[in-house]
């Protein structure tokens, strides 16, 4: 009788577990669902622009990523002797295995694999210059204490061959602190442009081909004709790259000369819009999955007034998977819905690092009071330190229909509006960013023009003769960083208190 009861209990538990697993599989949203995409993707600021997405059939026929085990990439001085040879001895190992995902913890771990899975690969080349610490001088990125460069990873998908994989989510959303500690999901700072710049300068990447890629990345059909979208010379482009601060990124869909500050993904579960321009609504894992799909290739196959940045036949039609010509070197692949779902679970699980900032209590009390009195609290409302709304930029008046569809804080803070108006990521808005974790960021304002909170509050930045410490187009010796004037007229003591308070968030 007792044995029978135990057997029944086990059966019941097994049934429960099976139901739970089925439930997880059932709730995985469909990534490429055109109706959902139309709901979550905000339109361009010019309402006449026609946006068309790759059809569901096209997306579903793309081959899925097979995620293999990856390995750390070390700076030359830190790599133990024989490391690469040992990798060559390994059998390829598929690590993302749906059959093994039983618990929420399993999904999160699987998501970490997706997060780190490169989207672009090049064979390891013994003759190519290797990463060494000399490349990291003058603030060019960082590496960990044990010499790992987390921007890229080695991949073994065939025994005996080592690939260098890059452009994973981790590439832009990993921060190496001064201590060498790594914070996954933070505003990244590991981008190292030296070798890429050398390839362009040396002509290894022919400038005409490079310009073609820049056109794919930057051209915006509704931008005014006077706006440039490609550099005039390799030197100009290199100077642009050099001006990009740690935490800034130059990627597809931006206006040329207007990079973006990379967002932190930590705490993004509560954030209602994705991208600095609030390009995509975020109402759950399905939307974050769609965002990832877009940003890892599908936005280049979206057509804007007939211009498909990654399209063939003069940007007019969808390429076959082996015809993909993404300037970043992506292959014609997609993530499976399960991979993307796992990715969201990992991103949602990310936690901020322990905050090392310690300030006297009275300074923080004063800082919090200033935060309220200076009006910061209205937009950067606790506990998220954002009100999760979009602010229209100068030059854009929200149509009446937007007030019921989107969350709009209906005033411009008068920052530069080019990215919101004349880039493919433009919506006419900037989202109000969360101030959580500002203490581990180094690119402020949407174009990363500023690098410290002190600079944000410095009224000198509003003047024409200002030299910003962050991104500045190389042809400008000085440049005002206008708008968002909140707090710029505070006393020095109040600014100190406010900054102390902000650094505790």
């Amino acid at each position, binding site marked *: 009788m007792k044995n029978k009861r135990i057997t029944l209990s086990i059966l019941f538990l097994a049934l429960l577990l099976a139901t739970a697993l089925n439930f997880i599989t059932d709730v995985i949203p469909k990534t490429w669902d055109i109706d959902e995409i139309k709901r979550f993707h905000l339109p361009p600021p010019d309402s006449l622009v026609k946006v068309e997405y790759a059809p569901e059939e096209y997306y579903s026929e793309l081959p899925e990523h097979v995620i293999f085990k990856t390995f750390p990439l070390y700076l030359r001085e830190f790599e133990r002797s024989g490391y690469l040879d040992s990798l060559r001895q390994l059998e390829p190992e598929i690590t993302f295995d749906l059959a093994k995902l039983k618990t929420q913890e399993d999904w999160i771990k699987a998501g970490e694999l997706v997060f780190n899975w490169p989207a672009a690969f090049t064979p390891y080349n013994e003759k190519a210059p290797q990463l060494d610490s000399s490349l990291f001088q003058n603030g060019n990125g960082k590496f960990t204490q044990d010499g790992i460069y987390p921007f890229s990873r080695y991949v073994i998908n065939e025994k005996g061959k080592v690939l260098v994989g890059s452009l994973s989510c981790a590439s832009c959303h990993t921060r190496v602190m001064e201590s060498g500690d790594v914070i996954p999901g933070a505003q990244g700072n590991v981008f190292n442009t030296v070798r890429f710049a050398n390839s362009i300068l040396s002509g290894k990447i022919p400038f005409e081909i490079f310009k073609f890629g820049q056109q794919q990345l930057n051209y915006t059909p509704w931008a005014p004709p006077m706006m440039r979208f490609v550099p005039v010379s390799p030197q100009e482009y290199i100077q642009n790259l050099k001006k990009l601060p740690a935490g800034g990124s130059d990627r597809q869909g931006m206006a040329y000369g207007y990079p973006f500050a990379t967002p932190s993904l930590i705490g993004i579960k509560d954030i209602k819009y994705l991208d600095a321009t609030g390009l995509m609504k975020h109402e759950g894992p399905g939307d974050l999955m769609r965002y990832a799909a877009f940003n890892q290739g599908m936005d280049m196959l979206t057509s804007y007034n007939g211009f498909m940045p990654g399209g063939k036949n003069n940007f007019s039609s969808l390429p076959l998977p082996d015809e993909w010509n993404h300037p970043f070197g992506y292959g014609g692949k997609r993530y499976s819905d399960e991979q993307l779902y796992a990715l969201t679970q990992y991103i949602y699980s990310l936690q901020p690092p322990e905050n090392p900032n310690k300030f006297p209590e009275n300074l923080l009390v004063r800082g919090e*009071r200033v935060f*309220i*009195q*200076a*009006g910061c*609290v*209205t937009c950067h*409302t606790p506990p998220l330190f954002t009100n999760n709304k979009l602010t229209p930029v100068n030059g854009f008046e929200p149509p009446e229909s937007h*007030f019921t569809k989107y969350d*709009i*804080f*209906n*005033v*411009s*803070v*008068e920052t530069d509006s080019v990215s919101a108006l004349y880039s493919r990521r433009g919506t006419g808005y900037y989202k109000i960013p969360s101030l959580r974790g500002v203490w581990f960021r180094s690119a402020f304002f949407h174009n990363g023009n500023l690098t410290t909170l002190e600079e944000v509050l410095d009224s000198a930045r509003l003047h024409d003769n200002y030299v910003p410490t962050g991104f500045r187009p190389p042809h400008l010796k000085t440049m005002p960083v206008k708008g*968002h*004037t*909140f707090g710029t007229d505070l006393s020095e003591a109040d600014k100190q208190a406010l900054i102390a308070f902000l650094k505790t968030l």
Partner: protein
Amino acid sequence: MIKPMILLVLLACLSFNEKNEIPAKQVKVNFLIYNAGIAVEGTLSKVEAIIEFNPNCLEESKIVAIADPKSINTGITIRDKHLLRSDYFDVKKFREIRLQSKSFRKLKKNFYSGNFDLTIKGTTHPIEIVFKSTSKGNSTMYSGEFETNRLDFGLGEKSPILGDSVKISFSAELSVTTKMNIKKVNVE
């Protein structure tokens, strides 16, 4: 005994046929609202008032005040700009804030209660305002305060940090100069 009283009131009302338009600089309107637990104060600097107030003839008295919402000042420029937009005062469509009296009653010496219609953003709500009227020499000062709910007038939306209630205080002075400039009009 009643007849002389009626006559007195009648005489007082007959002599009350002047309309005092007070220049904006003599009308002050301040407001206070709590944001995240801390008071935010502001002003409306462009306000005009027509005061036809006779303590001895309350039933014939009238007060109308008109404020220009564009003159709002909270000390933060971008916030002020926001207050002018469609989710707050919507000044493109609604150019004035209007306070118009309907009746008055005396509470005690120098203190009165008035029933007013307050119109903001095209919405009108009745409101009772207690105010003080004191005369000194040739000038009379009117002052008082009242509270209203900004959501009743569609000023913004419910907020976890911004209070619903706005406390409004005002003062208006009728000086000798003002009285010299008054227009003679018939009070209907």
